[in-house]
């Protein structure tokens, strides 16, 4: 049996099992917030990335709400750039490490970390500090640099993005957790949760050619949605994003936003970055497509200052 067939079949089997168990849609397994969660979003400010996460995840019922014993977990931090941690171009390695620990403590069988980087991937993995932090914390660091790792999927309902080649780990794992970093972005003006998904697909050029903002929103339709979005707002790159030129591009905001709703999370992020939400087109697109709620007023937000 070819590996691809095997994957397809096991994905199918998993789907059948999931459907049988939950009597709900397969996507619900991924997307819906656990019924126990009291808040739509938790925002923490004033501590170290690790301490803020410890507090924040507790407010959402602990990692056990999202990761069950024996599950395989995929973490998608932003490792896109060959820049050191203090430049804020990539997710804070200490945060990634702490999330891995929480997953393992919740009984995860295996935790995987990967990104399809923009710069040379070996340098990115190494110089971002994420490779070492993840391995030390007990995760498997997986490459995303070769087209071989990607499988083509349909995006039903996508306006511009109807197909995408997605990293195989999305199909091989049970829980998907998004750990982006908040940054200025040169053309979409902001990158946070939804835009981080450009690192799970192979052909980003297609997005750039075919209405970037719509493609970002379209991808959010894809069934393998993150169970949790942990937005790192510790060192925030407020200009020259998404790569940054120097430390002068950074404002230390010492914050973190955690939510199961990535549209809401991105909406809150615009406030942190001080940009007009009307200009971040993909948020409005995604809201309109029913992928989340961008109206922060209607959300139950828990705010914690440390």
């Amino acid at each position: 049996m070819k590996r691809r067939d095997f994957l397809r079949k096991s994905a199918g089997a998993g789907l059948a099992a999931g459907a049988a168990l939950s009597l709900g849609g397969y996507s619900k397994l991924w997307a819906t917030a656990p019924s126990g969660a009291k808040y739509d979003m938790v925002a923490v400010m004033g501590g170290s990335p690790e301490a803020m996460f410890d507090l924040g995840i507790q407010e959402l019922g602990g990692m056990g709400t999202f990761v069950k014993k024996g599950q395989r977990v995929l973490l998608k931090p932003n490792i896109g750039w060959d820049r050191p941690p203090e430049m804020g171009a990539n997710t804070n390695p200490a945060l990634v490490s702490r999330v891995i620990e929480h997953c393992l403590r919740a009984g995860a069988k295996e935790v995987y970390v990967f990104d399809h980087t923009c710069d040379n991937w070996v340098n990115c993995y190494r110089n971002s500090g994420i490779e070492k932090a993840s391995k030390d914390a007990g995760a498997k660091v997986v490459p995303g640099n070769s087209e071989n790792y990607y499988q083509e999927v349909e995006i039903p309902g996508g306006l511009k993005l109807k197909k995408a080649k997605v990293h195989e780990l999305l199909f091989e794992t049970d829980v998907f957790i998004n750990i982006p970093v908040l940054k200025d972005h040169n053309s979409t003006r902001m990158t946070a949760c939804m835009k981080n998904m450009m690192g799970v697909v192979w052909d980003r050029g297609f997005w750039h050619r075919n209405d970037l903002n719509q493609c970002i929103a379209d991808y959010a339709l894809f069934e393998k949605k993150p169970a949790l979005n942990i937005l790192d707002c510790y060192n925030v790159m407020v200009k020259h994003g998404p790569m940054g030129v120097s430390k002068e591009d950074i404002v230390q905001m010492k914050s973190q936003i955690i939510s199961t709703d990535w549209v809401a999370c991105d909406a809150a992020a615009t406030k942190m970055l001080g940009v007009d939400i009307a200009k971040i087109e993909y948020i409005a697109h995604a809201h309109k497509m029913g992928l989340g709620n961008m109206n922060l007023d209607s959300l139950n937000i828990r705010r914690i200052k440390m």
Partner: protein
Amino acid sequence: MRSPLLRKIRILFSAVMLICFILLFIDFKDLIPTKYINYLLAFQFVPSMLKYIDAPTILSAGFVVVLLLTLLTGRTYCSFLCPLGIGQDLFSRFGGRIRKKFRRYGFKKPHTILRYSLLGATIVVSLVWGIYLLTLLDPYSVFGRFMTYFGKPVALVLNNFLSWAFHKFDIYTFDHITISGFRLLTYTIPVVFFILVGFMSLAKGRLYCNTICPVGTLLGLISKISLFRIKFDESKCTRCGRCAIRCKSSCIDFLQQKVDVSRCVDCFNCIDVCQDDALSYGLVSFKKKKEAEADSGKRKFIAGSLMMLLGLQQGLRAQEKGSPVPTKQSTVKENKTCPVAPPGAGSIEDFNKNCTGCSLCIAACPNNVLKPALMQYGIAGMMQPVMDYHHSFCTFNCVKCTEVCPTYALKPLKMEAKQLTQLGKVRFIKDNCIVKTEKTACGACSEACPTKAVYMVPYEGNLLIPETNEDICIGCGHCEYACPTVPYKAIFVDGNPVHLAAQPPLNEEAEMEAHEDFPF
């Protein structure tokens, strides 16, 4: 000395050398520290000489050591240090294995006119015109190209197989590496030489080294006055002819009891094979005798190696990434007035004079941005590395190519200096840009720019469009690589004939302040 140990020492030493050189070129994980690479390369004759001409220091005087060594010991360089020579010995061994009874060697007359014409032509052309012939014939560079064009891809195929196999068990020690081949035409020279060297060594031992290789011929001339050589003890010799048959250089005339020192590469096989202890290696003396032998070609091997090579090329081509169909084709052709030379080249003119196209930088580049040139630099620059920004870019935090260059064609650059070296200047073609043609956001170029020489300014509506500042552009080509338009890019780097110093990027403090409280 007539100990059989001599041959054993030679085999051990050369095997270690060959393995080191092979590892050097297939080191796709960048595991070998630069200083060891430089130790290894320091004694390669032609690269060291070119390096010395460029920067005469004790560190670049490896070729002087080789000359002195030759004066003292004869052409030991060819057996102990030259990777192409050692590689040929390996081939000769295979050649011998395939038909054991077949006697390939035996004394033959040297191709005197041919070898000295080639040496003369190489020297004259290099002095008068350019190092074109040296690029073509330098044995180290020939070996380097074999490794880069054929050796490394084979290693990558193995790696990818391991990666695939381990992957099944959820182990990610090996990662899949896409094999990026070169343009088909650039394979011409390596393939021709592989067939030439491969056939000559399979069938005739060191015939290539003693006929075509200019370094071999030059060292042969010098070794005519070398102090140590292979000697006959006439009183012991029974003229059995075993030595002549064993001699890869076909340079032992056992009837006359003479060794042609200009062709002898000091492999010591003859000493090993002589049952009468009549041959020894020692201080010079004189005496003489005669005989010869001939043989046919081995079509099977040529056909085999030819097929292997063709197959390899096909494999390489097949692995190139297919680009998706774009909505609209770009219309304005990029107008590159000058190719982009790698960092450390200084000026293209100087670079072309020093590079022998050994391809080590091409093999070593972690981003595969260096590709062998066809006619970008003109005919004299064939096989020299040129930046190919359509398929990759020069990664910001890397100076690998400048560190490994054995000839100083690429001079060592400190990281800080490299990050301010302008290889070329950015050029923006607005009429190709997605933002103008499609009226949608893109910014792939500016996103990728490490110095923000490409930045975005307001355009129609909510759109932003690129603008460039060539003063701070370093010509890394990341914008050109990232630009998604086809077939022509909307942004490209035009090479600088002479590399310039770029202005440092602008670092103003951010105006924004951290929030006192949640802004939502």
